[in-house]
C-alpha cells in the first residue's frame, strides 16, 4: 500500500526526517510511536502534502505511484486521508456544506458521478449516528465551538464518508477522555478492512488498547529505529523512550 524510501525532510533549514524507511501493507494497521520531537507529525504532514517542508531526498509511493509531486487535493483524491491532531475551524461554512463539497470534489477528481442529495444525506446521517454526532451539529460552522472530542469525532466522520484507502491518525487520542476515546476507536475499527491501511501516530500506548495495531514502529531523530509486533508498544509503555533517545544519537 504505502512505501517510504530513504526520506530526508527539512523545514526552515532544520533537518527533521533523516532517511526514514517504512512499509505499510494492504489492510495493515501500523502504529508509529516515539518521543516528542522525533518527527512523527512531520511524517504525517509530508505524506499529506503540506507546503513549507523541503523534501531533500527519497520517495513516498502509494500503490507504486510517487505522491511527492502531487498537490494535497490530488493526494486526497488518490485515497490519502489525514485526521488532524488539531482540526481547523472554518467559520460560516456549515459542516454539512463542507462534507458535501469535499465528497463531490473527490468523486469528480476520480471521474465518478456525483452523489444524489438523498444518498449523500443518508450517508451523513448514518455516519453521524454511529459516532454519536447530533444532527444539529452538522448545521453549525465546521469545528467552530466544537469541543476537543467533537472535533475528533468529526474527523472520523469525514474519514468514513470519504472512504480513503490510506488513513493517517495524528495523535487522535490527545485531549480525549475515555468515553470519547472508545467512540473514536470504534469508529476507526469499523473502517478496518483488507483494502484499507492505517498509520496510527501516538505518543501513548493507551490508544493501542482500543485500536490494536498489526505492527509498531518506533521513531527517533527522524528515523524508524525499531519495528515489531503489538507487544513492542507494551514494552515501550514499561520502559519509556529513554533507550531510543540515545540509540540514534
Amino acid at each position, binding site marked *: 500500500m504505502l512505501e517510504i524510501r530513504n526520506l530526508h525532510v527539512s523545514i526552515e533549514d532544520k533537518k527533521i526526517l533523516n532517511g526514514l524507511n517504512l512499509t505499510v501493507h494492504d489492510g495493515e494497521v501500523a502504529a508509529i510511536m516515539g518521543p516528542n520531537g522525533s518527527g512523527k507529525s512531520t511524517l504525517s504532514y509530508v505524506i*499529506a502534502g503540506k*507546503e513549507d517542508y523541503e523534501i531533500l531526498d527519497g520517495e513516498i509511493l502509494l500503490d507504486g505511484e510517487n505522491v511527492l509531486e502531487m498537490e494535497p487535493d490530488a493526494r*486526497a483524491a488518490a485515497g490519502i486521508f489525514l485526521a488532524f491532531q488539531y482540526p*481547523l475551524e472554518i467559520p*460560516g*461554512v456549515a459542516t454539512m456544506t463542507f462534507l458535501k463539497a469535499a465528497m463531490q*470534489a473527490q468523486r469528480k477528481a476520480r471521474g465518478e458521478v456525483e452523489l444524489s442529495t438523498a444518498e449523500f444525506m443518508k450517508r451523513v446521517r448514518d455516519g453521524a449516528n454511529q459516532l454519536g454526532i447530533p444532527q444539529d451539529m452538522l448545521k453549525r460552522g465546521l469545528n467552530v465551538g466544537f469541543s476537543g472530542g467533537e472535533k475528533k469525532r468529526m474527523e472520523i466522520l469525514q474519514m468514513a464518508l470519504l472512504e480513503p484507502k490510506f488513513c493517517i491518525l495524528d495523535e487522535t487520542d490527545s485531549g480525549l477522555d475515555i468515553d470519547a476515546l472508545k467512540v473514536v476507536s470504534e469508529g476507526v475499527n469499523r473502517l478496518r478492512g483488507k483494502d484499507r491501511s492505517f498509520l496510527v501516530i501516538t505518543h501513548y500506548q493507551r490508544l493501542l488498547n482500543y485500536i490494536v495495531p498489526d505492527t509498531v514502529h518506533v521513531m527517533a531523530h527522524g528515523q524508524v529505529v525499531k519495528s515489531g509486533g503489538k507487544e513492542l508498544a507494551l514494552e515501550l509503555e514499561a520502559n519509556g523512550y529513554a533507550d531510543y533517545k540515545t540509540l540514534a544519537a
Partner: protein
Amino acid sequence: MPAVKETVDQVKAIDVDQYKYGFETEVEVDKAPKGLNEDIVRLISAKKNEPAWMLEWRLDAFRRWLTMREPTWARVDYPEIDFQDIHYYAAPKKNAAPKTIDDVDPAILDTYKKLGIPLREQEILAGVQQSKVAVDAVFDSVSVATTFKEELKKAGVIFCSISEAMREHPELVQKYIGTVVPVTDNYYATLNSAVFTDGSFVYVPKGVRCPMELSTYFRINEKNTGQFERTLIIVEEGGYVSYLEGCTAPQRDENQLHAAVVELIALDDAEIKDSTVQNWYPGDKDGKGGIYNFVTKRGDCRGKNSKISWTQVETGSAITWKYPSCILRGEGSRGEFYSIAVSNGRQQVDSGTKMIHLGKNTTSRIISKGISAGHSQNTYRGLVSAHRRATGARNFTNCDSLLIGNKCGAHTVPYIESKNGSAIFEHEATTSKISEEQLFYCMQRGLSEEEATALIVNGFVKDVLQQLPMEFAVEAQKLISISLEGSVG
C-alpha cells in the same frame, strides 16, 4: 454547496480579463459639450423639461458647489479630477422619448440582455426568475425603460425615472427632494444636485406592501461622461418596499466619475430595504482606468417605528467612497447596515455607514465584512452617534476584515459619539488572514486551492449575503469569487 462549484467553474471560464461587463455598445448619442457652467445646468434641465423651480434648485446648487472643496479625509489617493473635461449629459439619440418598450433602440435592449437584465416583460416572465422584479434601466444620463409600471400602478405604487416623476408628480418630488441629503451636504452631493440626469423614483402609499422587488440597473456606456444618478424613495405610513440597484460599465483606460445621491424616506411604521450590488469597472491590475464611485446614500427614518436597512455588495470601482447612512429620527425607529466590500488589484475602498440616533429608543445594527486581496486598500469608516434626547439608543457594530495575501491593507476607523448617558453602543472588530493551515485542511479533504478559498470566503460573508433578496444572493456570491480571481497563490 452547489454555488461553490458553480462559482469556481465560472472563475475558470474567465480568461485573462476578469471583468465580463467591459463591452461597449455602439449607439448614436446626443451629448452636451464637455465642461461645467450654468449653461450646461440649464441645458440638462431643458432636456428634461423640468419645472422652473427645479432649474433654480440646480443653479443654486451649482453656485454653492463653486465655493466648495473636494474632501480629502478619506484614505484614498487619486490624481485631481478635471471637472471641465467631462460630458455632463449623454443620451442615446433614438431613445428621445420611448412610449413603449418597442420604441427603445434594439442595441440598448441587447445591452441589457447581455448583462442578464431582460427589459421586455414577456421575456422576464418567460425567464427562469421565480419572482417578478420590476426594472428601471438607466443608460448613461437617461432612463430607457421601466418595467411592470402598470401592474405596480394598480397597487398604488409609483415606480418611474426621476425625470418622469418631475413632470408627472412634481408635488411629491418638490416635497421630498433634498430633505435627506441637503443641497450643501458635501462636495459630490452638491455637484450631483446641480447636474443629476436620471435615476429612479419610488412612491409607496399608506399601508401598501409593494407587490414585487423594484430595481434599477445603471450602465455607463459613453466615453468621458460622468453619471450623476439621483434616486428618491418615499414610503408612507405602514408601507414596505425592497429596492435593489446594480451597476456596470465598459472597460476603459480613463477613469470615469459616478457621483450619485440616493435619498430614502420612511414614515410611521414604514420599512425600506435597499440593496446594492456594485460592479463598476475596477480598472486593470496596474490600476489603470476604472470608475470613481463617489456616492451619498442616506435614509431618514422620519416616522415612529420605521425601519431602513442597507445591504451592499461592493466589488467594483477603482475608488469607492460611500457611506449609506440612517437618520433615526422617529421614536423606536431602526437602522441596519450590512456590507461586503471586496477589493483586489489596485482598488481603493473607503466605505462604511453613519447611524445618527436622534429619537428615543432607536436601535441600529452594523455588520461589515471587508475582504482585501492583491495590492488593494480597504477601509471601514463608520459613525455611531446619540443625540442628547436619544434616550435608550442602542447600537451593535461588528466589523470583520479578511486579508488574502500580504500586500493588501485593511483599516477600521470607527467614530462613536454619545451625548446621552443611557445610550448603549457595542463595537466588535476582527482582522484575520486566510491561513495556510485552513487551506491545507480543505485541500486535504479534496478541495482545490480555488475551491477552498471560495468556501472560506463564502463562510466569511454569509451573514451579509443572507440579507440580500434570494435571487441576488447567488449572483453576489459569484461576483465575490470572480473579484478575487487570481488572488491566491
